[in-house]
């Protein structure tokens, strides 16, 4: 294998591993805000207990997200130097903006969130949590924006003098609001919220199965389950469906490739499960008639352009794309269905609490959810191949020209070992945290809640400062 192939594998590995964590930071973070608001309104201490518990889990997730995120920023220059030279003007500025606007927001308030339970009053603590979660979303916004520019580039011109050729910005707002940006952003946000709610729901359901912390778990589930149903359903019905329309309009070859549609068809079928034979250019499997036409054009008789329409344009690896895409397409509705089933069992005389089968289904949703969003991200990235900037720059042209295959092999080996270790440690510690369960409030609270500063005025007031200085001297 040459440096390019190894770099592709390494980038896919590191990006996929990183992508386990940010959606949880957003989704679990949102749920933490919800719990915090409920505590604030009800003053029932059980919600405060849950906040302490989930903040600790959040800290673990966030640390891994940060640790693996830096890798992504460095890899553009390390493995994809020609790509970086080509897109620096456009893509680099979005990445820098992410740093200035989002990372500092997260980094600044994370300490307050993780350490603030005993230092800040409930209102300020909730505010800190909100700011971290806001920062996580803000960060994702810039990344999706940059990636959307790679999918549907606009607002630039190619300058060749002096060498090397590069994309130069002509209109900043066109770069920001590319055609695919907002639909993709909404889809990713909603998917992340789904996974975050799934984590909370899974852990609550597991406690109910094991008959531990039962009252707390019931309360937690009553918040997580409706949120999960809402996010999962809305994402399938509105934002997922909208994604099909967006790809149809902006990247029709990608749509045809995702579905293995070799020739144009009216009333085009959509597969539930299938296999693409790329040598004979045939796709077979179980399909629903006319569904693809309906999703793409909201008209069952519409003609969907096949791969042949775009010849001789280069195509992505069709079967791989087909499989990851269909995994997402099947799992999305399945997750929503599990949620609805759980909701119905709850409404039916609270049978959910005793149904081991349904509770077990709820436990696995977080793993299924993670697999589903990863396959969604793969669909977006594999579907763009062989381009790195769609129809402008091929991935193969973007690789660093001086890179030795042996060096990449070494780094790939290092990442495989390091990330395996991290994954094992992460799961071990997460499991420990969950096994230990929420601690008693008396064990985590070291100060009287009412004595903690709960407004910025409390923190920065002159009297407070005078008292502190007095203590220090």
């Amino acid at each position: 294998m040459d440096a390019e192939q190894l770099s592709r594998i390494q980038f896919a590995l590191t990006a996929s591993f990183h992508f386990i964590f940010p959606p949880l930071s957003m989704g679990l973070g949102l749920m933490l805000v919800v719990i915090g608001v409920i505590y604030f309104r009800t003053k029932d201490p059980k919600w405060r207990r849950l906040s302490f518990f989930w903040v600790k889990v959040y800290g673990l997730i966030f640390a891994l997200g940060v640790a693996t995120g830096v890798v992504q920023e460095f890899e553009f220059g390390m493995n994809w130097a020609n790509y970086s030279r080509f897109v620096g003007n456009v893509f680099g500025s979005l990445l820098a903006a992410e740093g200035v606007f989002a990372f500092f927001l997260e980094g600044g308030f994370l300490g307050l969130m993780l350490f603030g339970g005993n230092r800040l009053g409930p209102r300020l603590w909730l505010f800190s949590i909100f700011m971290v979660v806001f920062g996580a979303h803000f960060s994702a916004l810039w990344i999706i924006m940059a990636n959307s520019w790679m999918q549907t580039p606009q607002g630039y011109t190619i300058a060749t003098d002096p060498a090397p050729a590069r994309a130069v910005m002509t209109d900043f707002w066109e770069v920001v609001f590319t055609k695919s940006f907002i639909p993709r952003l909404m889809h990713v946000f909603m998917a992340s919220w789904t996974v975050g709610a799934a984590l909370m729901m899974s852990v609550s359901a597991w406690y109910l199965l094991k008959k531990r912390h039962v009252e707390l778990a019931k309360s937690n589930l009553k918040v997580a389950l409706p949120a999960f149903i809402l996010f999962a359903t809305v994402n399938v019905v509105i934002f997922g469906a909208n994604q099909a329309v967006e790809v149809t309009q902006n990247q029709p070859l990608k749509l045809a490739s995702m579905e293995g549609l070799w020739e144009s068809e009216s009333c085009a079928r959509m597969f539930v499960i299938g296999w693409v034979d790329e040598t004979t250019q045939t796709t077979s499997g179980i399909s629903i008639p006319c569904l693809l036409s309906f999703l793409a054009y909201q008209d069952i008789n519409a003609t969907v352009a096949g791969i042949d329409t775009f010849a001789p344009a280069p195509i992505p690896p069709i079967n791989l794309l087909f499989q990851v895409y269909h995994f997402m397409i099947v799992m999305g509705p399945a997750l929503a269905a599990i949620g609805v089933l759980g909701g119905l069992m709850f409404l039916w005389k609270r049978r959910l609490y005793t149904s081991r089968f349904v509770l077990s289904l709820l436990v696995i949703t977080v793993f299924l959810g993670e697999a589903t969003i990863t396959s969604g991200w793969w669909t977006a990235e594999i579907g763009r191949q062989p381009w790195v900037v769609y129809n402008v720059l091929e991935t193969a042209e973007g690789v660093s020209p001086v890179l030795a295959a042996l060096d990449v092999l070494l780094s790939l080996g290092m990442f495989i070992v390091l990330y395996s270790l991290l994954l094992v440690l992460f799961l071990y510690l997460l499991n420990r945290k969950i096994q230990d369960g929420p601690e008693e409030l008396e064990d985590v609270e070291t100060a009287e809640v009412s004595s903690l500063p709960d407004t910025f005025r409390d923190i920065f007031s002159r009297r407070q400062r005078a008292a502190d200085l007095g203590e220090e001297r």
Partner: protein
Amino acid sequence: MSLNELWFALFVIIIAGYLILDGFDMGVGILLVPLAKDDTERRTFLNSIGPVWDGNEVWLVLGGGVLFAVFPLAYASLFSGLYLAFMLVLLVMILRTVALEFRSKESGRRWRSTWDVVFSGASLGLALLLGVAFGNVVAGLPVDANGNISISLIALLTPFALLVGVTTAAMFAVQGGIYLLMKTEGELYDRIARAMPRIMVTFFVLNTLVVVAMVLFQQQITQRYLDDIWPVIFPAAALAALAAAWLYVRRGQAFRAFLCSSAMIALLLISGGIGLYPNLITSTIDPANSLTITNAASAQNTLEVALIVAVIGMPFVLLYTAGVYYIFRGKTVVDPHGY
């Protein structure tokens, strides 16, 4: 002042911000194993940086993003040319993060002391690597006519670069030690205070060696100071700041000493930046291949957009940073909610 010059200055300031802030938490890491004896003391060390290390590291991420946006050709050449070195930087950065995050999640002694050694070693490793990278940037790299750098990892380990690496580690130990003086009390404070003179003298000697080596062997950097004498005020001010830090440490005024050592780090970096200007990476093959603040830069409109982003964003950055340090000011208390 052109936009390119302004961005060069801002880039130096961002890297200075990184070295000042992540410098003290690397320093705390370097001193963790030698100075903190039992678990409570180690937790005091770790909790002193607990609420702020993540924000500190963001400065490096910001530096990388700014280099990518503003000087993409330098970003691409440097990161791909020093591939394995940056891979090691990533390795130790990840190890630092996870060691800090994982060590207090279990109560076993073996578990904790293992992670403490990992954290301490990775902090030292990161300081050395950053220093070696900086030493190589100062000495120049083999940039070819296409802007590519081909150099093996071993070839980066020149005596000069290693000297800069060790000096950087000592500089962070000074910075971290002074930070710990603000955060500790009692017996632990006394022990750190007793170690400080040795650490500071070590740094001073090493730094003097670096300056001598630069004057003797790195004339591309010192030439500017010979052409134009006024920039000498920057290294001179750095020396004065170190002297002031020494005095404040002796008087037990840790906060003032910390401001002085922070100023010293910034002044040293600015002194290096002045020597490099207008090059970002000096070519050792042919000066015409050097990547400069003009030939490696993005187009003017990108520099403008990036500047607008910085003008809007940086006040917030400074506000959060100041706010967090203010809230977590004073001596570190180890409680069950921390590391």
